[in-house]
């Protein structure tokens, strides 16, 4: 393992959106078995340092590739495409209208403590996320980097909303 290798190379899988998650997990464990600091608890400081660096790197790579959102972002990054999460807020009007509606619904649902509508909102959001993941996979395959970046920004937006729904669930729960 070389610290200069990219995440896909570290795991020995092709650099594409469609990854075999089971293979990824198996490789992850193989790698950690070799480099994890627990293997070097009685080792010299130099080796403990190397082990920590490598184990940290393996964790970072695994975390990035495991989630489809960060995996897509990483593929764009490898192509030198900046998804412009902070600076580019331009999104299709239709998408934005939908999200504003969702947000309003969320507020109402929370105010009313309506558990069933919250669950419905959550699953409706999940459906849209899945659709967008399908779209970004096609765009990445077709090397439409710019289009993919737009989809990624939308996905990021939806993730925030999904987190808020999760928090609302937690709030109603306790």
């Amino acid at each position, binding site marked *: 393992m070389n610290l200069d290798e990219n995440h896909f190379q570290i795991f020995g899988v092709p650099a594409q959106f469609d990854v075999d998650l089971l293979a990824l997990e198996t490789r992850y464990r193989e790698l950690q078995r070799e480099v994890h600091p627990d293997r070097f608890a*009685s080792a010299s*400081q130099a080796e403990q340092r190397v082990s920590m660096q490598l184990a940290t790197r393996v964790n970072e790579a695994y975390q990035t590739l495991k989630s489809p959102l960060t995996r897509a972002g990483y593929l764009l990054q490898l192509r030198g495409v900046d998804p412009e999460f902070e600076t580019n807020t331009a999104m299709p009007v239709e998408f934005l209208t939908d999200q504003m509606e969702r947000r309003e619904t969320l507020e109402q649902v929370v105010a009313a403590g309506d558990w069933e509508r919250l669950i419905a909102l959550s699953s409706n959001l999940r459906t849209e996320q899945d659709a967008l993941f399908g779209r970004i996979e096609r765009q990445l395959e077709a090397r439409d980097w710019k289009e993919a970046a737009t989809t990624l920004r939308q996905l990021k937006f939806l993730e925030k909303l999904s987190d808020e729904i999760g928090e609302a669930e937690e709030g109603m729960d306790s």
Partner: protein
Amino acid sequence: MALLQISEPGQSPAPHERRLAVGIDLGTTNSLVATMRNGIAVVLDDHDGQGLLPSIVRYFRDGRAVVGRDAEREQARDPKNTIVSVKRFMGRGLKDVTHAENSPYDFVDSPGMVQLRTAAGVKSPVEVSSEILKALRARAEESLSGDLAGAVITVPAYFDDAQRQATKDAGKLAGLNVLRLLNEPTAAAIAYGLDNAAEGIYAVFDLGGGTFDISILKLSKGVFEVMATNGDAALGGDDFDQRLFRWVVERAGLALLPAEDTRLLLVKSRAAKEFLTAHLEARISATLSGGAELDVSVTQKDFQEMTRPLVAKTLAPARKALRDAGLDVADVKGVVMVGGATRMPHVQQAVAELFRQAPLNNLDPDKVVALGAAIQADVLAGNRGSGDDWLLLDVIPLSLGIETMGGLAEKVIPRNSTLPVARAQEFTTFKDGQTAMSIHVVQGERELVADCRSLAKFELHGIPPMAAGAARIRVTFQVDADGLLAVSARESTTGVQAAIAVKPSYGLTDAQVTQMLRDSLDHARDDVQLRVLREQQVEGERMLEAVENALREDSDLVSPEEQGAVHAELDALRKTLSCTDHRTIKSAIERVNRATEGFAGRRMDRAVKRALAGRKVESL
């Protein structure tokens, strides 16, 4: 030096090379030490055949400290100098201490960690804990007839950086080589999982004397992977005692009590609580210091009613952990109960209701953590044989963040990230010619810095003077396998390594630990210098052997020049071994370390490539 002695599967060190390693459960109420004996983890007993050491330390005017049952017996007579449940104060300021009003201690509100004024002087919780650890170390060394090579000390999974650091410092102060801080529920999972060859998703519900943890783990093919953890670092059996104590005081119409009576009634309340686990009614009777007689009855129903809110406090963290793991109650195959407080029937019932299954109680909830720690200690000390080739992947329990504009905390490392983990963040200067900046690191889930725990304030100095916004300071936050944070910084445009002045809000600096070691009477007696010298000699010998083996095994990975340089350092090290200054040996070891750094990395590469080649696929 494990990297330079990667042994093939099936090989394990010869029995005479076995290194003595122990697992220590440093509990709020009781502490234990365990070790591996003939492949089985066992708790080491004291002379009276007792495994549990009450975590109680009594200080005397002459500086002496007595630990355990002897201290426990006198606690009501000398409450101010007899420290119980010191774990609650680890890494905590006075304002964080719950029930301070019911504590008989003379607290000293010092910056960072609270301290206690005793007959033997002002003591920090780190020092008090180190007395407990010293007692366990002595027990282990006597029982195993030899010096310990290392110890694994367990901590609540929900302990933050300050509490972990304090625990590690206590270990160092007790003269222990702390191999790892291990999370208590994870330790329990190891003991349970290996015992039962468990596979699947397990929850560990750990309600101890002063802390509550819930961990969700995935056990599969020898890998223990913590998926999420949550808890409450200030909730435990102690709180049930306190609740009952207040009820008794109210019931008996007592006014403000002297410290002796408070302690006496707390002890009686605890006994009643324990009695109510198997009985429907308990009686609390005592003679108070003024001569008054107290006699109160409490039913199991009363007790359960008054403590129901405490039980309820465990449920929200449990749900959160499941949610963070992305799992549902139905995914959980078993719930392992850990900690003496889980014996209470209404706790058992609440857990059963939440997880919709009867919890697992087949391991002694008081001992399972120490046993798991012993198994891990044995592995970390390098006594690993074939068959126990398992891997532990744990997480950071609380998010790490930094203070940004307006007193807001910006998350740098999210909670439940698998350890070790690092994140780099870029900062810039906001004034022309600015050469220093300060960074405030906090831990917690809340948005406001004021609601999170302050871990450290860092000052970066030596930033090259540039126009505002031109400097790029890259700050790296690294959390190691103990869950401890280290910070480093570098100015990226010029490559200047900015100096960092670390001002830990909690925890001790290395210099403070050294000073405490020196001050410690105990160590003056067994001669610190000689100990340290012997340790370095052993380390040096180990190093020589390991590097020589490695050079034999992988000679193709070193160039002739490199080999020459390494041999020169090895010879130098060999010569220092007979000297009497440990620092000389230490620096020779460090030089060998530096000379073999590249080689170590290449050996690691080779090991990884071997792993990737699928050599071990069948065993996964």
